[in-house]
């Protein structure tokens, strides 16, 4: 059907103006941008959740709570919360010491300090305050931990990572490695996303 013929049939219909096209395209790109933002926020929450969970397992003795959660014993969880206490840092200090990289006193200091650092960095990701700082610290921590885990394996050390307190006590080396690589990939994806956002806003 020719254009002239079509205009005869529907005389009141006009071709969309270039301005309208631009605003329509703008709206679509806005929706796309919002959707992508939501996806990145979800990634933020997942990664932050992992670190906060890891920190909590080291700061508090949550073994019973996790066991009850795993077996869906919700009734006894109130009692678990009432009996919740600070976890013994000796275990985590021993886990750090097992890597045979740092002297014992530094390992003890880290056993007290690192869980809180993880916790604050996780909160920074959730609250979007000090975001890049939190992200950078977590990338550094996971990268160092990954290298240390591989180095320990190469040196033939039989280690437990201690990454999630007692929960990860019996994890195999491939499980350690896979978890760390996945977390590092997530963190790097967040980092590059923030950097590209910063570039477009500049």
């Amino acid at each position, binding site marked *: 059907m020719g254009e002239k013929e079509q205009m005869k049939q529907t005389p009141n219909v006009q071709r969309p103006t270039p301005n309208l096209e631009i605003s329509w395209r703008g709206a679509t790109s806005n929706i796309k941008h919002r959707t992508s933002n939501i996806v990145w926020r979800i990634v933020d929450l997942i990664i932050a959740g992992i670190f906060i969970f890891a920190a909590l397992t080291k*700061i508090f003795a949550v073994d019973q709570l996790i066991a009850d959660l795993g077996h869906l014993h919700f009734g006894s969880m109130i009692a678990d919360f009432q009996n919740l206490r*600070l976890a*013994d*840092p*000796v275990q985590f*200090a*021993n886990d750090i*010491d097992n890597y045979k990289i740092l002297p*014992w*006193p530094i390992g*003890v*200091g880290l056993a*007290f*300090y690192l869980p*809180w*650092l993880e*916790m*604050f*960095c996780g909160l*920074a990701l959730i609250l979007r305050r*000090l*975001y*890049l*700082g*939190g992200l*950078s*610290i977590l990338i550094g921590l996971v990268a160092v931990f990954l290298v240390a885990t591989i180095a320990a394996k190469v040196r033939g050390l039989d280690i437990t990572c201690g990454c999630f307190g007692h929960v990860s006590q019996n994890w195999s080396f491939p499980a350690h490695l896979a978890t760390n690589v996945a977390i590092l990939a997530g963190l790097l994806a967040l980092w590059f996303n923030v950097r590209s956002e*910063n570039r477009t806003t500049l």
Partner: protein
Amino acid sequence: MRSPLVRQILILVALALAPGIGQAVYFQHKISWKSPIPPSELATVDQTRAWGENVIWVDARPDDEFASDHVPGAISLNEDRWNELLPQFLAAWSPGKKVVVYCSSLSCNASREVARRLRKEAQLPDVFVLEGGWEAWGKKNR
């Protein structure tokens, strides 16, 4: 972007310090900053002398070192042959006896590991690590 990033990192590092120090103060009597073994799990050579016959000595060093010399009456129990040696040790153990584990020196880890496994896997109470290990025992007894 670089300077705010450094500032953010410093703020987070500083924020985590306060609760970390608080926790360290709270646990000051439960963990030793000098050695991985808490003071309550360490025994000195003099202490073991005071316990007299009530002690079972466990040598956590490798077989060849045990064969060359050891504390009189000591039982060899190292991690290399744990499953093989543990039953022999358990046969010699009786309730009420104090178990003192030693390895070569202050810096070795074998005694700590063997003591930990005896407590955890064999559920034994009163398991101690000899402070200074075989070296310390040698100095006091020669």
